[in-house]
Structure formats: structure tokens, C-alpha cells
């Protein structure tokens, strides 16, 4: 689509329009990125309260974060919950994606929509639904309850990413393995999984982040005993005004950006693999 053509094929575009478009784009991109960038200098402020520009450089807010057990405990809990959610969601979502992409059974479309629906249903609805449910079971305030709900919200990411990788998968590779005597189980581990692995990894990372970032369910279900990092941040934003939250935010921006970049790389690799297995199959 971006092939180069000789000069007479060059697109005419009035200069004025080009300048306008460029200016609007620059302004909108600035609007998107500026608030994110502004937090970083604030987190290194030597002031006792939020002030801009920061009067001097200091690491006190990072020190505060890493020395306060409520902050660290919240971060640790969020990481733990995220990891378990990641494992559960990947374990449930990967086989489901296989069945949904390969299978031809009645109601498949409805089932697909149902599995994806936690992604689009307003989270507040899921949150109060499970809150009533766990309140009756006496599970409010248990990390276990958060894990169970976050897994529901994370599963669509796994199913979508794995399905995308399976879309172009050449099933003859599996037939070949099985005709050579491999059991279906062994075929899955030695042929299927290695090929779809980038999609599985991308889905797993998305699942982790979706749980790690989740606030609304946590607001209802975490009680006072299972305070996750977003929940702790929420309290801090509402009731304290010290810049510790800026330091936490900076750490989070870097952490989630790194995870998403990794997921994006996996996704790109799965796209490349898809085209290359198609090429192998074509030979």
C-alpha cells in the first residue's frame, strides 16, 4: 500500500490541508502524551506537596513507597493475584480458543459472544453482581474472590489472542505429526503449542495486566483485608495528597509499558509465524 510510484503517480494534496492535518495531529498527540509525561518530574519533587515546577530533586517519594508496608503489601498482593489470574485465564482460555476456532458445533457464535462479553459489559455490573454473591458467601475481603472474578475479566484477552494465532494455522502439520505416531496430547505439546506460543504469551500478558490494573471490582470485593495496588492508589488519591502517588504512577507507567511492549512483540511474532507456516505449507 505504500509502494513507490514514478512522479506522475504522486498524490496531489493541497499544502494548506497538509499543514492543517499536521498541526491537528501534533496537538492531539500532545494532548494524549503530555499528562503522562507530567507525572514523572512530579515524582522526583523535593516539595512536601504537589507543586509545579518541582523546587528540587529528591527520591523521597520513592523511598516512601518502598519503605511503607501498606504500599508494598498492596503491590505484592496485586502481583500475586495477577500471576494466578494469568495462569488460570491462560489455562482455561487456550483450550477454549482451540475448540472455538476448530470446532463446528451449534451455538458457537453465541458461546463466542458470551466468552468475550466480560470485555464489553460495564465492569460496575460485574462488580456489584459478584459483590452481592460474595457478600452472601462471606468471601468479601478475600484475595481468592478477587482472583475468581479477575479471571473472568481476563479470559477474553487470552481467547482473542490465541484465536488470532490459530486463524492461519495449517492443521496438516498436526496430521503429519499424528500420522507419524504422535498421540494427540503429544502433538499438542510438540507441534501446536510451539506454533501458537506467541499468541498464548501475548494473551497471558494481557490477562496479567488486566488484573493488575483492575480497580472497580476491587473497590467492592477487596474489603479492608485484600487491598490491591489500584485500590490503595484510589484511597491515596482521594484522601492523601502527597506525591507518593506520583512515584507509584511513574513506576506503573514504566512497568505496564514494558509488559505491553513485550506482548506486542509476541503478537508481531505470531503474525510473522502465521505467514511463514502458510508459506511452508504452500511448498
Amino acid at each position, binding site marked *: 500500500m*505504500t509502494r513507490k510510484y514514478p512522479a506522475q503517480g504522486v498524490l496531489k494534496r493541497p499544502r494548506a490541508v497538509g499543514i492543517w492535518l499536521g498541526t491537528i495531529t501534533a496537538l492531539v498527540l500532545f494532548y494524549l502524551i503530555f499528562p503522562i509525561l507530567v507525572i514523572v518530574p512530579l515524582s522526583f519533587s523535593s516539595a512536601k506537596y504537589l507543586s*509545579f515546577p518541582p523546587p528540587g530533586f529528591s527520591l523521597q517519594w520513592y523511598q516512601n513507597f518502598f519503605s511503607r508496608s501498606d504500599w508494598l503489601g498492596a503491590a505484592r498482593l496485586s502481583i500475586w493475584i495477577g500471576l494466578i489470574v494469568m495462569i488460570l485465564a491462560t489455562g482455561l482460555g487456550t483450550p477454549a480458543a482451540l475448540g472455538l476456532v476448530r470446532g463446528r458445533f451449534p451455538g458457537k457464535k453465541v458461546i463466542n459472544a458470551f466468552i468475550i462479553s466480560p470485555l464489553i459489559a460495564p465492569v460496575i455490573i460485574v462488580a456489584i453482581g459478584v459483590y452481592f454473591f460474595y457478600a452472601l458467601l462471606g468471601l468479601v475481603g478475600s484475595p481468592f474472590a478477587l482472583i475468581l472474578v479477575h479471571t473472568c475479566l481476563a479470559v477474553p484477552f487470552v481467547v482473542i489472542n490465541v484465536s488470532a494465532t490459530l486463524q492461519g494455522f495449517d492443521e496438516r502439520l498436526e496430521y503429519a505429526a499424528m500420522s507419524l505416531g504422535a498421540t494427540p496430547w503429544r502433538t499438542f505439546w510438540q507441534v501446536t503449542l510451539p506454533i501458537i506460543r506467541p499468541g498464548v504469551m501475548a494473551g497471558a500478558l494481557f490477562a496479567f495486566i488486566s488484573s493488575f490494573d483492575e480497580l472497580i471490582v476491587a473497590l467492592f470485593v477487596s474489603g479492608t483485608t485484600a487491598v490491591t495496588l489500584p485500590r490503595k492508589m484510589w484511597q491515596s488519591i482521594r484522601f492523601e495528597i502527597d506525591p507518593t502517588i506520583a512515584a507509584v504512577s511513574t513506576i506503573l507507567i514504566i512497568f505496564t509499558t514494558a509488559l505491553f511492549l513485550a506482548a506486542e512483540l509476541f503478537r508481531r511474532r505470531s503474525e510473522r509465524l502465521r505467514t511463514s507456516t502458510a508459506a511452508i505449507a504452500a511448498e
Partner: protein
Amino acid sequence: MALPATSSGRDASQRGHVALVLPLLIYLGVFYAYPVAAMMFRSIHEPRWTADNFAQIFQTGVYLQVLWLTVRISLIVTVVSLVLGYPVAYVLARVDRAKSNLLMILVLVPFWTSILVRTYAWMVLLGQQGIINQLLLSLGVIDEPVRLLNTTFAVYVAMVHVLLPFMILPLYGVMRGIDENLLRAAQSLGARPINAFRQVVLPLSLPGVSAGCLLVFILALGFFITPALVGGPQDLMIAVLVQQQVDLFNWPLASALAVVLLAAALLIFAIFVRTLGVEQAFGRART
């Protein structure tokens, strides 16, 4: 796993496929569908069959106002996102790959950053002692700090900021797929650039427009964090109202409000899937 071993084992393999999906279905049934269904049931049966909760919502001025405000904010946020997002997606799709990948980072990093952090950033920017106020003061534009935070304006600014990437990404995906040769053909046949855009690019980008608009609108309807933190008491959106009712232990009414919200979301979701198909609609939703 359950892969078709022989062609005669077709039925068995279909059963195998279903067996692969079943654990997830059971899991979601127990921990997602059942609690939500029970919550919906509570709205019409607490302690016995009643439509009072819905009657209350649709007859009380305050609740109707919240519903209307939620729809209005969501619509305005959608339109503003489209107006701001369309030119950006267009430019990103027209520049070469290397440049657009680089510029895309400016869209993706905010997209990847947690909504809580982004909303906090707006609180820092818009606050009484915030950066924008201090900047305007030092430039002499204003004499005393202007109230920016906890206003409807703040809700719009922050919500558009959070939702704009959901508009830009599907638009970009669709526009990347438009063959530039079509534009060349139109121009070589004598179309002026503006007409070539109107008659070629615009119609071909419509699937991206509808995907982006529906996605932004549906997400905006259920917004909670941003209006709760940057809005004032006058900016009560339905999700915030639901949470307040839960805190007041008014569970049946909270449930009824949630049902209204869910009905609206499902309606739009149905349109979404009908017009685009599940995979096409969501494949781009968060990548």
C-alpha cells in the same frame, strides 16, 4: 488434545472440541453469569415480585436526570473523540511505516497506562494549584486560580483522553487497509483531492468509524473512575450512582440501575457484533 485422528472420528472430534470449551463455559457460568443473573433477578424480586425499582428509576426526576446525563456525556465524548481521532488516524495511516510506528507510541503509551494513573494526571493538571492554573497565572491570563477540577469540563477532557485511543486504533487499522492506488486512480481521472477524499477514503473508512464510535460510546456509558474523581456532584453518571446505592445498602435499586445500564450496553453490543463480527470488532480493541 482433541484433534481429529481419522476422518471417521468426526463426531468424536466435534465432541472433543466442545470438551475443550466446556471448562471455561462452566467457570464463566458459575463466577460471572450466575452472579450477574442473580443481581438482575434481585431488581425484580426483593423480597417478592415487584417492578417498583424500575418504576422508581423512571419516575424519579433525579434518576432520570442521571440516565440522561450519562447518555449525553457519552455521546459528546464519542463525537469529540471522532473529530479529534479521525485526522490523527488518517495522518498515521498515510505516513510511512517507520514514522507511523514511532508516532503510534504516543497513542499506545497512554492507552497502556492505567485509567487511574491517567485520571490522577488530570487531577494534577487541572487542580486549583495545578499546572494549568499556575501556567495561566504566570502568563498573566488570569489573576486568581480558575476552578477547573470537579467540573463537567474536566469530565469531558479526562474521558476523551482515556477513550481517544479506542477511537484512533480501529480507525487506523481500517485506513491502513485502504489502497492508496484508489486515490491515485481517482485523482488521475480528474477528481480534486477533496473529492477523492470524500468519495474514496471516507466511505472506505466507515467500518472504522462505526467500530470506534460504538466502542467509545459503550465504554463511556459505564465509566466510573474518571467521573468519580474529576467530576463534581453535578456530574453524577450512572455507574457512580450504582456505587452510591450499594454503599447505602439499597441493593434492589442498585441492581435495577445496573440492569438499565446493562440493557443499554447489550443493545449496542448487539449492533456492534451484527455489523462487524466479534473477532473483527475485538481483534483491534486492545492491541
